[in-house]
């Protein structure tokens, strides 16, 4: 008897653990496993949408990991194209991959980008004993010898982290960017470890990835790639003030299916704006190292179009796409 009961318990526990889907009015697809940035976006914004009475029922979060978001993207394009109750979490990684045709044949115009509600600013970081004091020092060194500075970042070659220093170099008039060394490791913290250890000369990543290491003094940030200095990190200068006109932020936002009506699209834009304006979201952003970055509706769509075009051009230059 005893073990039968235990078996039943074990089996039902497992079944309860793995069965997640049920029908709700609004669904938010996080194209990654629980715990990551996209998952956070869905869960946090989904909760606020309900708390702020923007939707009638709690938002159901579905995790659909695979191909860096490509599986979810294809799912939405092919099977959910007219679903007006669907949001999908997205970020700079989504547009970078779309620009590089990393989602198979999918293109960025197969969905509508409806809004961004926060951003993780890009940073370029060196070890504390690095000879580089400013972004300018580093750019000069690379201009003199392109192979002298190797970057480590958390994305694969051609990914968003790789693009950041290349954009700075392009802004500085350096054109031989194919010669700049980059290694893609497993995440931002790993990239910092390689830089502190002296294996690479600089790390390129997001603000949220470097917070602990900045506070402990093991690394120095040469520049933050946002429009203005980030509150709480006021001593880190922007690339812009150092004369390099580059803004590269890892935005957090959503896309919706292409086939929904303009009214439905605008309704989502309004709802997302409401979340962005709420005190609760501002709190959540501060707690997670996100800087304010709100763009919704048509504005956001045209901004995304520009970003995709720029990324595509840069990717061709460094040879990750033909």
């Amino acid at each position, binding site marked *: 008897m005893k*073990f039968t009961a*235990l*078996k039943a318990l*074990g*089996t039902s*526990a*497992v*079944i309860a*653990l*793995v069965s*997640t889907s049920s029908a709700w009015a609004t669904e938010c697809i996080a194209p990654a*496993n*629980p*715990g*990551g940035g996209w*998952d*956070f976006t869905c*869960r946090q914004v989904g909760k606020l949408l309900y708390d702020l009475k923007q939707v009638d029922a709690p938002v159901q979060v579905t*995790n*659909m*990991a*695979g*191909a*860096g978001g*490509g*599986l979810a993207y*294809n799912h939405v394009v092919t099977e959910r194209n007219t679903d007006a109750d669907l949001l999908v979490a997205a970020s700079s990684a989504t547009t970078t991959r779309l620009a*590089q045709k*990393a989602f*198979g044949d999918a293109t960025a115009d197969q969905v509508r980008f409806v809004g961004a509600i926060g951003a993780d600013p890009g940073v370029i970081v060196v070890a504390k004993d690095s000879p580089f004091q400013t972004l300018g020092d580093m750019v000069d060194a690379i201009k003199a010898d392109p192979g002298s500075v*190797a970057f480590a970042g958390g994305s*694969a*070659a051609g*990914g968003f982290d790789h693009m950041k220093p290349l954009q700075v170099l392009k802004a500085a008039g350096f054109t031989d960017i194919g010669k700049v*060394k980059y*290694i*893609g*490791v*497993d*995440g*931002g*913290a*790993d990239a*910092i*470890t*390689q830089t502190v*250890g002296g*294996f*690479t000369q600089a790390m390129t990543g997001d603000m*949220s*990835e470097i*917070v*602990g*290491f900045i*506070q*402990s003094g*093991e690394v120095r940030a040469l520049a933050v790639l946002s429009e203005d200095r980030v509150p709480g990190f006021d001593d880190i200068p922007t690339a812009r003030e150092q004369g390099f006109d580059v803004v590269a932020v890892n935005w957090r936002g959503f896309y919706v299916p292409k086939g929904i009506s303009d009214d439905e699209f605008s309704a989502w834009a309004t709802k997302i704006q409401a979340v962005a304006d709420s005190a609760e979201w501002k709190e959540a952003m501060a707690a*997670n*190292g996100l800087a304010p970055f709100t763009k919704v509706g048509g504005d956001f769509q045209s901004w995304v179009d520009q970003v995709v075009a720029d990324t595509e051009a840069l990717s061709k230059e460094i040879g*990750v796409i033909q």
Partner: protein
Amino acid sequence: MELLSNLALGFGVALTPLTLTLAVIGCFLGTIIGALPGLGPSNGVAILIPITFSLGLDATAALVLLTSVYYGAMYGGRISSILLNIPGDEPAMMTTLDGYPMAKAGRAGDALVISGVASFVGALLATIALAMVAPYLARIAYKFGPAEYFALYALAFATLGGMASNNQAKAALASFIGLAIALIGLDNNSGFYRFTGGNLHLADGIDFLVAIVGLFAVSEVFVFIETHGKSSAVGVKLGKVTIPWAEMWSTRWTMLRSSAVGFIAGVLPGAGASLGSFMTYMMEKGIAGDKGGFGTGVAKGVAAPEAGNNAAAGGALVPMLTLGVPGSGTTAVLLAVLMTLNITPGPTLFADRPEVVWGLIASLLIANFVLLAMNVPMVKIFVKILTVPPAVLLPGVTMVSFVGIYSLSGSYFDLVLMIVFGVMGYVFRKMDIPTVPVILGILLGYQMENNLRHAMTLSDGDWTYLFSSPIAAVLWIAAATGFIAPMFLRGLLKRPPTPESAIED
């Protein structure tokens, strides 16, 4: 005495009725998840994350629950390794090599008790080491660059040849197949996809969990069907569980050595528990020599990998907490949880959030004792789950495998792939090709290639860079010794016949 006051703080946080209850629940669920093929620590923890969020647990309570599941799964993985010859999760793979022969010889109880105690020793020592030296140890990671990591993986591969007792060529073939499979997916160094045939499901590469469940569990189903259960592993009986004190005592040095090596393997980001159990098994096999009877069902053969992988599980927490670098798949998931709970792991975590760190360490100590109780005196409860009649058990195992693999990415593609691996495992068994090296190839190949390519990028293609640091040089010497020494020794010594005593005893 700072350590004691810190521990007092930790126990103050951890010894509440809620956290204790969570620890017990976590250990129980973890052991079951670990014991079921297809569900390992990483998807066990991942599955539980939404539950911790919906329960509204605070940071400490959530961490206690999830790390109890993590440690529990590390303990539980050995149960199906020993009883079914199917590893419950990937670090328990090495435990099949001696655990299953022991079970076949009617000594399943001894194998479970010894490996349970070895798990306890490994996990306990690792937790103590974590408490005492974590902040200093974190600096080891700064010493490991691409060249050092490549040498480390080369060391692992160099000792692979000695693993298959009968045929080196077949082991080599199997590991090359594993390496080839590891090439599938996004190439981190060029940004291009390789061997995916344009299929997005292959873009992230093949999850080794899919391979391991296919090669071990699904192929077991095929063998079972073919032989009507006669030569299948399923259905091993467990008699009375007694504690083989003398035999356990004889493995004391094995347990201690394996704990130390496992812990270090865990501390190095990227290496993780599987490498820990593999290296400790090969090390002990080397120390014992041909007379040790490794592979035929000896106590040391289950003590070494279990102490090693549990110590590695503790070691993997070091880089996660102090650097924010996950040392294994599971700690990567835990790291994500920490971030969502608004805790930033990194060099300042021990100073900024002592209640989280020391609460975690205290609850790990508690979880260890709970797990020892569950896995030695009470092990029969979990064994019962696996010793129902084969006709009932095997469909159950198959079902859980399918559910577990489906939960990885929610796509049927992984299920098809799992069956393909099942067929491959069946053919390999028929041809007497070992399947463990295939998994190791998949597991290590990706990291090994990446680090080699990184090294070549950084050094402009200068291969001497691979030998340029003292750490790398030492690892290369160890690798060369591990590779050449067995051939040399085999020439000198005539291989003695397999000791009969190890089987009869």
